[in-house]
């Protein structure tokens, strides 16, 4: 088992597609929450292969895309404070905030460094004791545990100049908010795979039980997605609404206890701002008071002007699944990956980028 080619098998894939086509009778609309799933769906042209009864819509599961301009502005403002080194995962660089981006700030002289792991950020702090090193904590339940681990490591190693700007977001609360906002009329949810690897499948139970929507946790290979869709179709046809795991090689119902404990030690739930959805209670993570000395928000005077949105950019509606990139007047014209207007075109996992790069409305 090598875990990649087996999950891209042409024969198995065609078998799954045939079964879905045969079984699907009722009209059903499924949302893939996660941007990683959106990319797989487009990269393998999966929408074209599904029967007309099934409609797939993309959800808000791209951590960069959902980061509000006000929070992006904070990150940029931090980079302007003398003595600060901002460290970040690479995808953040190009994302336009209200007035600038980290990439532009960097070109103008701010010290912004791309790292591949939080431990690299920690090493940067250790190597530059006279500077303040801030890591941009952006991501879902997937990245929160490793960032928590970096804070605990900093404490253990006695590193006093390491800070985290925690912009973490939690997935279950935003899905509830989405479902409550109405207008989506989903018959199934493709639940995020990596998030579930951390939190397990139990946190999705409320969707099946309270909203009557079938839920299946999926992996990221094309066969994972097809198997997940097949399982959703099966539930729809039977009139079931349960939580199932198609991604058994990565996800256990109870999640990853070690990762969850790390998160709980360092973070506590807080309100968070989401692009297109506003503030959602309990949907973010802030650093607990006992780790306050690592909290960038508490230790720097971050000054930002009021956030402004780019007029006409509909990233917010796209993230809610109520519009598609094709509905946007900028898509493929003023807004392209090389010159993005909104974050959904920047991030490798953004819907606009997936539509643009892999076909979608360009006829692929």
């Amino acid at each position, binding site marked *: 088992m090598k875990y990649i080619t087996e999950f891209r098998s042409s024969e198995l894939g065609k078998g799954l597609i045939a079964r879905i086509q045969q079984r699907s009778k009722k009209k059903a609309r499924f949302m893939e929450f996660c941007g990683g799933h959106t990319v797989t769906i487009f990269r*393998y042209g999966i929408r074209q292969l599904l029967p007309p009864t099934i409609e797939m819509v993309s959800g808000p599961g791209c951590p960069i895309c959902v980061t509000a301009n006000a929070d992006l502005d904070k990150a940029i403002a931090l980079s302007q404070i003398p003595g600060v080194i901002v460290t970040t995962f690479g995808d953040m660089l190009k994302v336009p905030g209200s007035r600038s981006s980290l990439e532009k700030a960097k070109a103008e002289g701010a010290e912004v460094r791309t790292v591949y792991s939080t431990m690299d950020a920690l090493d940067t702090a250790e190597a530059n004791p006279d500077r303040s090193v801030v890591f941009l904590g952006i991501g879902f339940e997937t990245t929160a545990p490793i960032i928590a681990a970096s804070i605990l490591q900093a404490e253990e190693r006695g590193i006093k100049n390491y800070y985290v700007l925690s912009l973490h977001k939690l997935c279950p609360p935003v899905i509830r908010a989405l479902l409550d906002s109405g207008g989506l009329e989903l018959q199934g949810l493709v639940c995020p795979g990596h998030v579930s690897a951390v939190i397990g499948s139990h946190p999705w139970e409320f969707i099946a039980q309270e909203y009557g929507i079938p839920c299946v946790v999926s992996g990221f290979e*094309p066969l994972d997605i097809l198997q997940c869709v097949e399982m959703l179709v099966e539930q729809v046809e039977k009139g079931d609404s349960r939580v199932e795991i198609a991604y058994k090689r990565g996800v256990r119902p109870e999640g990853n206890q070690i990762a969850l404990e790390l998160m709980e030690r360092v973070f506590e739930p807080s309100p968070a701002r989401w692009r297109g959805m506003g503030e959602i209670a309990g949907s973010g993570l802030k650093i607990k008071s006992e780790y306050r000395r690592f909290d960038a928000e508490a230790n720097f005077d971050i000054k930002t002007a009021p956030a402004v949105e780019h007029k006409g950019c509909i990233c917010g509606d796209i993230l809610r699944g109520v519009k598609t990139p094709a509905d946007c007047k900028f898509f493929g014209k003023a807004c392209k990956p090389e010159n993005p207007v909104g974050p959904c075109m920047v991030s490798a996992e953004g819907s606009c980028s997936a539509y643009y790069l892999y076909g979608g409305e360009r006829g692929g």
Partner: protein
Amino acid sequence: MADKILLAHGSGGKLAHDLVEKSFVKVLANPLLDKMDDSAVFELSGRLAFTTDSYVVSPIFFPGGDIGKLAVCGTVNDLATSGAKPLYLSLAFIIEEGLALEDLEKIVNSVQAVCGEAGVEIVTGDTKVVTRGSADKLFINTAGVGVIPEGVNISGSNARPGDKVILSGAIGDHGIAVVSKREGLSFATKLKSDCAPLGGLVAEMLKASPDIHALRDPTRGGLATSLNELAQQSKVSIRIEEKEIPVREEVLAACEMLGFDPLYVANEGKMIAIVPPGDADKVLKAMRRNKYGKKAAIIGEVGAENPGRVTMKTVLGSSRIVDMMVGDLLPRIC
């Protein structure tokens, strides 16, 4: 303390002279270089191909090669893409003060070894040393000339609808091998760069069919970017089949980890050939006989509709666009 390159090594004075004589000319020896004139003088006849490229790879030593081997292969392969037989190269170093002399000598030896294999000679060169921080260890520029055989007319604008697209082997080895050794990102892999001189491969392909329409070595930007360039230059569409494209399991795994698509990962020893349909099998067989083309495969076809567009039939049978690469490859964060 190990010998280091000093600013004086690039000054034109005694140290510089010694370095050139002992470390370069002695190793790279050939009648044209040995004359030590300011320019190499030689006669050539026929249509010539001329190209230049600069090499700034980091790290300068990577699994399967180093910056010296790369600098020769890159220029040899650029000449080969016009069907030329590569002959003479220039070699210019920009060295950061403090580079270990031993490293430089290793690189020059590697240049010589690959020149021998490629059948080319370094006939002129230059050395500059810059202060620490003004360059990163070592940059190399090479330029090269080659002669195009009679009757060969290869250009990126010659692809025609109906032509077959042949790829000489597995993609992404170079990019992943280099990235695997990059600071802050190192991971364990046995993968080696595919860095190789392809003049011999192209000569054998041309023997099988002098009517090859286009050749391109898919380096930075990978297979996807090269195919897009060809489609745009020739004003045709190109349709490839995902299941026909050779990719090593190690490359797939690394791409998953880093969030890369192998179609966009750099190669340094691969060739794309666009060939009239009647000649495709002959060329494919010739490629498979060469050690750098053993895994060659027909991966697609040229079409007339939607000029400039590259599409791919996925393993599942659906279709998608294959765009040019935008910016740098960046790892995903979730």
